[in-house]
C-alpha cells in the first residue's frame, strides 16, 4: 500500500486512458467512438503533465523583482514548461482530429440515417 499511494495518480491515468481505448474499439456508436478518442487523448495529456509537475512549485511565469528586473529563478520552484508545450500541441491536434471525425460521422449519418456501426454495415451490403 505504501508503494501504491504515491503512484496512485499514474494508476488513475492509465485506467482513464484504457477506458478511452476500449470505447474506441468496442462501442458501436460513431459519436461514442469520437468521445472515447477524446478521452484517450486527454488521458495522455494528463500523463504528460503529471511527469512535469514539481512539488511545491509555482507556475512557469516569472514575476518582476524589486527594481522591475527579473531575478534568476530558482529552477526547483518553477514547473517544467517543456511538457506543457508538448501538450498544448497535443490538445490542438486532438480537437482537429475530433472535428474531422465528427464531420465524417455526420456524412455517414446523412447516407444511412444511423450512427450505429452494425446498422450501417447492414445498410451497405444491401
Amino acid at each position, binding site marked *: 500500500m505504501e508503494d501504491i499511494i504515491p503512484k*496512485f495518480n*499514474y494508476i488513475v491515468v492509465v485506467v482513464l486512458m484504457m477506458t478511452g481505448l*476500449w470505447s474506441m474499439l468496442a462501442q*458501436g456508436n460513431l459519436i461514442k467512438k469520437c468521445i472515447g478518442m477524446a478521452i484517450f487523448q486527454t488521458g495522455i495529456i494528463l500523463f504528460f503533465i503529471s511527469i512535469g509537475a514539481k512539488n511545491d512549485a509555482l507556475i*512557469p511565469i*516569472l514575476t518582476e523583482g524589486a527594481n522591475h528586473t527579473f531575478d534568476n529563478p530558482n529552477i526547483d520552484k518553477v514547473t517544467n514548461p517543456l511538457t506543457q508545450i508538448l501538450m498544448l500541441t497535443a490538445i490542438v491536434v486532438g480537437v*482537429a482530429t475530433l472535428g474531422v471525425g465528427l464531420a465524417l460521422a455526420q456524412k455517414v449519418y446523412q447516407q444511412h440515417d444511423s450512427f450505429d456501426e452494425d446498422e450501417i454495415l447492414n445498410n451497405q451490403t444491401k
Partner: protein
Amino acid sequence: MADLPIWHYDTLFLTLALLFGITALAMQNLMGAAIVFGAYSFLMCLIWTTMGAVDVAFTEAAVGAGVSTVFIFATIYNTGVSATPNSPRIAFKIFAGLIAFGTGAFLLSALPDFPDWGDPKSPVNSTIAPYYIANSITDAHVPNIVTTVLADYRGFDTLLETTVVFIACIAIYSILRIDNAKSKVTEPDIITSPPAYDPTDSLIIRQASRIMVPFMQLFALYVIAHGHYSPGGGFQGGVILGASIILLSISFDLKHVLQQWTEKKIMILTALGVLIYAMVGLACILMDGVYLDYAALDSVLPGDEAYARSHGILLVEIGVGITVMFSMIGIYINLASNGRFDRGL
C-alpha cells in the same frame, strides 16, 4: 505567493474525472453524453491548474470544454438520436476489454521504474528544461516561459500545429460542403431540417449575447497581446474570438452572421494566419538567419536581439490567432449547417 497544494485536491479531482469519463461513455442519450464530456473537460482543466500547467488549462477550457462540446452538439443536434445498440456486441466488447486490460497492465509494469511524482530532480526536469527556465528572460525578454518555448525554441512545432488547425478547417469544408446550386452530385437528404428561425424566441439570450460579444472579443485580443506576461497567447485568444462569433450564430440566426462573415472571407483568412507564420520565418532567412530565427530580424524590428525575438514571437502569435479564430468559425458553421451554410442550430 501561496504554494500550490498538489496533493489535497488531486486525488478527489482525478477520481471524479474518471467517473465523469465513464459516465459520458455509458450514457444512452447522446446529448447528455456531450454535456458530461464538457464537464469532464472542465475537471481536467482544474486538475492541470493544480499541477501548475496554467497555459494548458486555459487552452483546454477554451478548446476542450468550450469548442469541442459545441462541435459534438452541432453534429448530433439535427439527428435526435439516442445510442441504443441493436445488438449488444458482447464478443466485441470482451475482446476489446482484454486488449485494453492487457495494454493497461503492460503500461503499469513500468511503474516502479518511474521517478517519484513531483520530483524536481527527475530526468525530465533536469535535462533541457533548466535551460529554458534560466534563459527565457535573457534570450527573449518574455516572462512567460511557456510562450518562449512555444513560439521561439520550439517554434517549428507551433507552425505545424497551426497548419493542423488549418487542415482541419479545409478538410471539414471539403467533406461537408454542399453547394446545392452548383454541385452535380445529388446527396440524399435524410436529416430533418431545423425549425425556422423565429425572432421572438429567446429574447434574453439574444440581448445578453449582444452585450457579451464585444467584451469577449476585447478580452481575446488582450489574451493574444498579453501572452508574454500572463497565461495566454495565440491559441487561447483565437479560440475565444472564434467562440464569440459562434455565440452570435447560436443566439441569432446563422444567416445573419454569414452576411457579415461570408464563406469566402472565413476560408481565406484561415489560410492567412499560416501564411503570416511561414513568411516571418522566410523573412528570417532573407535577413541571413536560419528559418524562424527571430534574432536575425533585429535590423528591422526595434530593440536589440532579445527584443527582436519578443516582437517576432508576437507576430507569429498574431498569425496563429487569426488562423485559429477562422478555423473554429469555419468548422462550426460546416458542422451545424450540414455543409449547406443556410441554417444552423
